[in-house]
């Protein structure tokens, strides 16, 4: 696994603007404007913001799935032009191929890359299945698994490609509260072992603070960076951390920033 030099900038966004044509409303839609942010190598950054603030759109642009209409976006100094093997996304919906077993799903990204032989990619997939705690389930089909287990497969599939940057788009949003907390703990364990540079999108403030080295708050649409908060909580973190005064203080800071934005977002509605 690549061990990046600590502190160097991995992902760099400068004045990113994302505007797209929405067929349904027949008008152009400004999702993100003037986003400046850096993610350092080995860092875990969480982006939070009011719903519809363009955070998922931003992540999709980082993955190369949608083009940016202004500014610059680069990974390790190379401009991002489209999807590539140096990034891997963990989707909000597991997006697993239902006709493939867990093993074949985890191997999917590797198969697309075509760098490893079939045997090598199966072997590596088994390692990651073990890492996400699904050993024994290699031959199961996705529909035989619970939502939490499906997301483990989703995570293993992304990690198996050994990306420079791991992108996570609200991966636990569809899980029940209990599974969700447990998956957060699991994600931190897995992240500690892989040390991937990670960008995690969520609307859950606690989740963001608990997971991240740094929390970035987006403004209401069009999204831009409103607040950047270094989370100085020690690692490894257990779930009890969420009830400590230091944690609650971070939560207050983030919450008031988001509350301000939600208010701003609502004002025009109140006026009109």
């Amino acid at each position, binding site marked *: 696994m690549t061990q990046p030099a600590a502190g160097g900038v991995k992902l760099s966004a400068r004045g990113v603007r994302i505007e797209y044509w929405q067929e349904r409303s027949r008008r152009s839609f400004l999702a993100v404007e003037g986003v400046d942010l850096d993610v350092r190598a080995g860092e875990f950054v969480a982006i939070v913001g009011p719903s519809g603030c363009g955070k998922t759109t931003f992540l999709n642009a980082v*993955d*190369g*799935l949608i083009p940016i209409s202004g500014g610059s976006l680069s990974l390790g100094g190379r401009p991002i032009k489209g*999807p*590539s*093997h140096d990034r*891997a*996304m963990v*989707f909000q*919906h597991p*997006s697993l*191929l*239902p*006709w*493939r077993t867990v093993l074949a799903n985890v191997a*999917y*990204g590797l*198969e*697309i*890359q075509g760098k490893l032989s079939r045997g090598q990619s199966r072997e590596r997939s088994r390692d990651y299945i073990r890492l996400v*705690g*699904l050993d*024994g*389930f290699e031959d*199961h*089909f*996705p*529909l*035989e*698994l*619970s939502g*939490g*287990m499906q997301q483990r497969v989703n995570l293993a599939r992304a990690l198996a*490609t050994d990306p420079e940057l791991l992108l996570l788009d609200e991966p636990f949003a569809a899980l029940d509260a209990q*599974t969700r907390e*447990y998956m957060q703990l699991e994600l931190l364990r897995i992240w500690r072992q892989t040390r991937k540079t990670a960008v995690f999108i969520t609307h859950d403030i606690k989740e963001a603070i608990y997971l991240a080295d740094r929390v970035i708050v987006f403004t209401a649409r069009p999204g831009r960076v409103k607040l950047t908060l270094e989370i100085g909580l020690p690692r490894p973190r257990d779930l009890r951390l969420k009830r400590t005064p230091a944690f609650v203080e971070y939560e207050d800071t983030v919450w008031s920033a988001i509350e301000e934005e939600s208010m701003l977002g609502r004002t025009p509605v109140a006026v009109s």
Partner: protein
Amino acid sequence: MKAAIEAEAVDTAAGPQRQSRAVGRPPALAAYQPALLGALSVLVFLVAWQLIAAARVVPALFLPAPTDIADAYRQMFRDPEIWLDLETSGMEVGYGFGLAILIGLPLGILMGWYRPLRLALDPFVAFFYSTPRIALTPLLIIWFGIGIYSKVAVIFLGAFFPITINTMAGIRSLDPLLLQAARSFGARDAQIFRTIALPGSVPFILTGLRLGVGHALIGVVVGELIAAQHGIGKRMSDAFTTFNMPTGFAALIMIAATGVVLTVVIQRLERRFDAWRPGN
């Protein structure tokens, strides 16, 4: 950690120990229960038929007994001509249905994949699909003669459209989330086609084939009914028009049996490709 995984697994009843499913497995006989019930009901039906025919409630001219039909088979296979009929009809279905798959499948895939092609061909597909194609049989006989090629054309037209349309629907109804995931991993079009589009539309393709079988059999019978030199459909039609009921029924049952066998083969394929759906 392990304990929590298993706790998750309990919800879905899909623990790592697959043999746990064997608990409470019904006795071996139960596996054959569907087949047994089916066979039993057919047997009861045949006995009832024989009794009604023997009682002569209906004149023998209109309703031959199952034993009469068995006699008809014996007679039929004593005459080597039957092999020519079987070969003719078999070739007609084989060529017609084969050609429908050979052209319909790739065309359906292309029409599902490339929107301009779909838009260009849509008027023709809509026209032919809504026309009772069997009505074109006399025309096709004028064009292709009374040999096998007119029947091949009728069968082809019957089977081609369900195969093409279902394949196209399969490609078009692919899960956009899967396509996005594939693109995110940097998959090229050919890879998306091979890993997502093809396996994703298999159930649709098989449905198209199953419908196609039905249309192919209608085609062979109607084609031979209108004008033919040889064939099982011709034999059936000749028998019925000369009030040779046992032979007519014998030919009819052969055609039906062909349909059943082909449908079962496709159902087997469907089950094989659907192994990932829970409950299989």
